[in-house]
């Protein structure tokens, strides 16, 4: 096949701080026509800088210092800026990660697509309008003639990303650069968008450079894969080679750190440390400090490309035929060495529940008009009941906007529930006063999603950790595993012990949060919650902002904390793999209500509700499964301000019946623990009904 894009020895510097950062350092790759090439790596590895270098859209601090980027034989680095404008959007197009930020909010979708057409095609007005309509239909936007004149805020997240794709396709490019195109989207929407990209590629024979950190997406989409680490490519392989036999220790360790069902009873293998600072000159392999198979050679010699088999190449000394031969057994051994066996502590009694939420409702009023009359309610949470036993994990799964986070916050009474009851142990929390609540607040704590906004940037770590202790008058942190109980340690010692428990050295307490990486910040956030001896931790997507390898560290930490301290978790997430790894029970939420609830094996293994089935099938799989059928959901999550009548899911449900449009289905039980709300299954007698 003809080579379309040919990058040779690309070096991009970023001039920030004292020394220039080598964001891309000697990158060489080739993409053929009509091929999907995936660039895989953690954040900070230079993936996006590669994409921006190709487009020559680097930030002001960026500078390409060496290399060639040839598209069909033309070196784009030699072109003047005016020549470059004829390439961008016409021959190479790009879609960005954040669809919310990459569309101009004051222009309609049609006007924005028209800009591309005007630049490259010079169509008459009528033809341009037809073309826009055609493009939007192509990306599956319903009612395109009307919706093309709408503004981006009238589009949902998935629709915006479709509109972005339509805009990128407007110039009929030969190469589409997709920079994390689905990271900001929900799994069901992600499945739609990935499917769309695949269809378009087949139709147009367009090459795609897919930049992502998600192994699942790579497995679904890519034909060839390059693994990028610290500014350079470390492994180059076809999809099958890569997923059957990852060669570079980094790739192997990435796979090992993925959470999943089969790893439930073990700790995940972690990649220690972080991506090294790219402002240094590397003497040896860049991965050596985090590698579990490092040799003495790796520290002082830069590895060259070594073939593994056929097209599969790797930049690692282990594959140098001259020096030594490595069997793959060695690798698995070393991985298992890392694994700490964690025995599942069997909790004798599950009869007494730590937390009981009954019929919880959180409605936000919508106010309109001059006098702010209440015109309606956003039913963020609409009658949710759940129970968590001590030391157990309940996972709350659902797409964004379904009310997961609101439940977490209203359990903590950060948001006042509209109705329902939250009982912690035997105490009713709803309608408690601030001072009464303070007495019980130490029992339940929350860990937030974004480690960057959950720590006050102006407070030192010690102050952050002390805050909760002094506010709640906690004198001593429980030491289930401490040896020196005799001497009453000062608060500072308590904090040292706390930091050690979350795997941080004690002297970090004098620093400010900005000096830490995302994973370390999340550890600090966990330490802050633990400082007041909680019995229940509400984890609101604690790993979704982190890289896979760091996610594994945090999940291990949470699991060991649960085993050592007997914590109960309410784990709010949209990541099914994490759920499979961590949860005992799962509750699936859709539009403010729980549609299916049960033990982990029941819900993940034998999902009953059509939504659960669709959700599980949309998760990109690494292991190719011939039986797998992706259930494509139409459309997006409806607005919780005006939920559909009857079953909330019926407009998107592939199995909807007449009755679904009229009444909300009552509960159907499949076992003592497994329940769902769906008319497909026989109803329980005398079960409670949701009224409308």
């Amino acid at each position: 096949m003809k080579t379309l894009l040919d990058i040779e020895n690309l070096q991009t510097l970023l001039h920030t701080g004292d020394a220039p950062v080598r964001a891309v350092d000697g990158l060489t790759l080739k993409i053929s026509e009509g091929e999907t090439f995936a660039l895989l790596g953690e954040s900070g590895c230079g993936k996006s800088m590669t994409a921006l270098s190709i487009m020559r859209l680097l930030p002001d601090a960026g500078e390409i210092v060496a290399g060639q980027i040839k598209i069909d034989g033309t070196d784009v680095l030699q072109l003047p800026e005016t020549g470059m404008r004829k390439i961008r959007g016409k021959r190479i197009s790009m879609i960005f990660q954040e669809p919310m930020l990459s569309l101009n909010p004051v222009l309609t979708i049609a006007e924005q697509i028209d800009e591309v057409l005007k630049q490259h095609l010079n169509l008459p007005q009528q033809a341009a309008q037809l073309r826009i309509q055609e493009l939007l239909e192509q990306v599956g936007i319903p009612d395109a003639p009307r919706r093309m004149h709408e503004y981006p805020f009238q589009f949902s997240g998935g629709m915006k990303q479709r509109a972005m794709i339509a805009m990128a396709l407007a110039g009929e490019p030969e190469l589409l650069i997709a920079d994390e195109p689905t990271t900001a989207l929900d799994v069901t929407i992600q499945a739609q968008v990935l499917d769309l990209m695949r269809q378009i590629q087949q139709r147009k024979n367009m090459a795609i450079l897919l930049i992502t950190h998600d192994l699942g997406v790579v497995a679904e989409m890519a034909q060839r894969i390059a693994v990028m680490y610290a500014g350079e490519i470390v492994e180059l392989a076809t999809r099958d080679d890569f997923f059957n036999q990852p060669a570079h220790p980094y790739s192997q360790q990435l796979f090992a750190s993925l959470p999943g069902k089969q790893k439930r009873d073990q700790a995940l293998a972690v990649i220690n440390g972080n991506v090294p600072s790219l402002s240094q000159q590397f003497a040896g392999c860049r991965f050596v400090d985090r590698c579990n198979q490092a040799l003495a050679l790796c520290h002082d010699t830069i590895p060259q490309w070594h073939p593994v088999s056929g097209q599969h190449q790797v930049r690692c000394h282990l594959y140098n035929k001259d020096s030594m031969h490595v069997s793959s057994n060695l690798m698995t051994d070393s991985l298992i060495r890392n694994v700490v066996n964690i025995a599942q502590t069997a909790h004798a009694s599950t009869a007494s529940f730590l937390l009981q939420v009954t019929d919880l409702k959180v409605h936000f009023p919508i106010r309109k008009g001059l006098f702010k009359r209440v015109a309606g309610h956003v039913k963020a949470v609409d009658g949710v009941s759940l129970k968590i036993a001590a030391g157990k994990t309940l996972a709350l799964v659902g797409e964004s906007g379904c009310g997961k986070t609101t439940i977490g916050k209203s359990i903590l009474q950060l948001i006042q529930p509209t109705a329902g009851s939250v009982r912690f142990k035997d105490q009713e929390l709803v309608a408690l006063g601030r001072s009464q609540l303070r007495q019980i607040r130490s029992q339940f704590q929350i860990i937030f999603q974004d480690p960057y906004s959950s720590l006050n940037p102006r407070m030192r770590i010690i102050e952050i950790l002390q805050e909760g202790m002094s506010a709640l008058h906690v004198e001593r942190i429980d030491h289930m595993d401490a040896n020196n109980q005799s001497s009453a340690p000062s608060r500072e010692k308590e904090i040292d012990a706390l930091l050690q428990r979350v795997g941080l050295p004690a002297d970090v307490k004098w620093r400010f949060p900005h000096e830490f990486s995302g994973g370390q910040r999340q550890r600090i956030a966990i330490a802050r919650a633990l400082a007041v001896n909680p019995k229940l931790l509400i984890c609101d997507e604690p790993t979704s902002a982190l890289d896979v390898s760091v996610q594994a560290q945090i999940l291990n930490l949470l699991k060991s904390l649960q085993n050592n301290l007997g914590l109960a978790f309410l784990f709010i997430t949209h990541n099914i793999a994490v759920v499979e790894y961590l949860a005992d029970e799962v509750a699936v939420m859709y539009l403010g209500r729980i549609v299916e609830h049960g033990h982990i094996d029941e819900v993940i293994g034998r999902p009953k509700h059509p939504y659960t089935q669709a959700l599980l099938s949309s998760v990109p799989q690494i292991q190719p499964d011939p039986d797998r059928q992706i259930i494509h959901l139409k459309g997006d999550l409806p607005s919780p301000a005006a939920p559909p009548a009857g079953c909330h899911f019926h407009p998107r449900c592939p199995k909807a019946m007449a009755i679904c449009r009229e009444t909300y289905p009552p509960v159907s039980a499949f076992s003592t623990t497994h329940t769902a709300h769906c008319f497909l299954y026989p109803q329980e007698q005398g079960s409670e009904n949701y009224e409308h």
Partner: protein
Amino acid sequence: MPFSPIILWTDALIYLFVAIVLSFIGYVRHHEHLLTPWKRVGHSASGMSALTILIFFLVIGLLDTVHFRPVLDHKTNDGEKIYSVEVLSLLDIVVTPLRTHVEKTYSAPLASHLYAKETIELPDGKQVRAFARLEYGGAHLQNPETEHIGDIVWRGATGLAYGLLVWGILVVCLCMLLAHRNQQSFQHNLSGIWRRTTEIPWYAILITLLILLMLIGCVSTLASHYHVLGTDKVGQDILYQSLKSIRVALVIGTLTTLIMLPFALLLGIMAGYFSGWIDDVIQYIYTTLNSIPSVLLIAAAVLMMQVYIETHPEIFETIASRADLRLLFLCIILGITSWTGLCRLLRGETMKLRELEYIQAAHAFGVSHWRIISRHILPNVMHIVLIATVMDFSGLVLAEAVLSYVGVGVDPSTISFGTMINAARLEMAREPMVWWALMAAFGFMFTLVLSANLFADAVQNALDPRTRILKQRNSFFHRPAKQETFPLNKTPETTTPSAPSQHP
């Protein structure tokens, strides 16, 4: 005693302000983690240069704050001392010649003659229209036409030399001090400063200081025999007026901010944090206040004050205390009308912060509202407060000028930039133009506000824990060097895509 000390209202507030600043410095010095960011301020070249100039202004302002009434020569019948009704400050004593050398009317800077012709009666009884000699400016010259320029150059040069000398002594002192502190040789420290390897940018500070000292030297040698910046309509020295205006500008800038800050901080953060009806009430208050033209409000308040002063002459011992009360009142009323802008900014920022997760986490810990406001929100809005107050500082100095023009500003007996500009305003239209009064006011205000801005910038950069100090100077000089390290075989335009290509 040869004088009787007087503490005016604004003096007291300035002393209070200085005491607060000093105790804050003392507090910071004893807390290592608070000291580190402030040390970073010391590493910013522009910030430290600005501070050098600011200190000069502050010293003048403080000198002008120490007020007293000098004793008069004659005594009362009982033998008691009589103190003058005129209130003087230390600055007045230091610059006595400037204060007392009053000409008849306008004279240009460094002139020896008046600016306008007037009728002079000659000894023989004839009358001539000519430029009269000044009473003080260049009065020592026998033959001004020939000696004038030479004398100025000579005196200026001696002044520069004095400045250089003082600077040299300061440099030596500094190096000795550093040598003593670091236990290194004198020369090592000197070369360190010269090669800009010291942590504190002494190089930049010393250059600023050199310029400042040479200017002061030059001006002070000339000022005893000339009017360096000319004289105004009634023959008062402009340099003296400019120096006196500095205190008024500082008072209006700082005291107004001091009065405005509690309103803005408290109400703004409360509105943003609590929302609901508290937010509504505060919003109504400031929108109402905002919708009244502030000049009208100030005019009304100041006129009320004026009436009060005039009907109660017995409570004011001196003219200065009357003028001072009016200045204080002006500060208060300016403060009350100018908090709304900052309040609105703070409300918005607090609303944003309130939703952040660390505040939510604090709620989850049951931290009290007051603690959340003081420990989480206040430190995170301080950068806005700092920028807004420095921006306001220049605005307030200008507002004083505008109000003095309308006639509701400071007391006419108070010398301020506003009254100077107001007096000079009409003279801009006359031919030949009298430009020096306006230029002097402009130059002094510009320097003051610019150095305050630069210093605030440096403080803000250093206090934000998220900013890393980028060594801008280095990156500036290193850029060309970087390209040399990478052999560019054939493509010079690959350096920066945005750069215009030289070989298309």
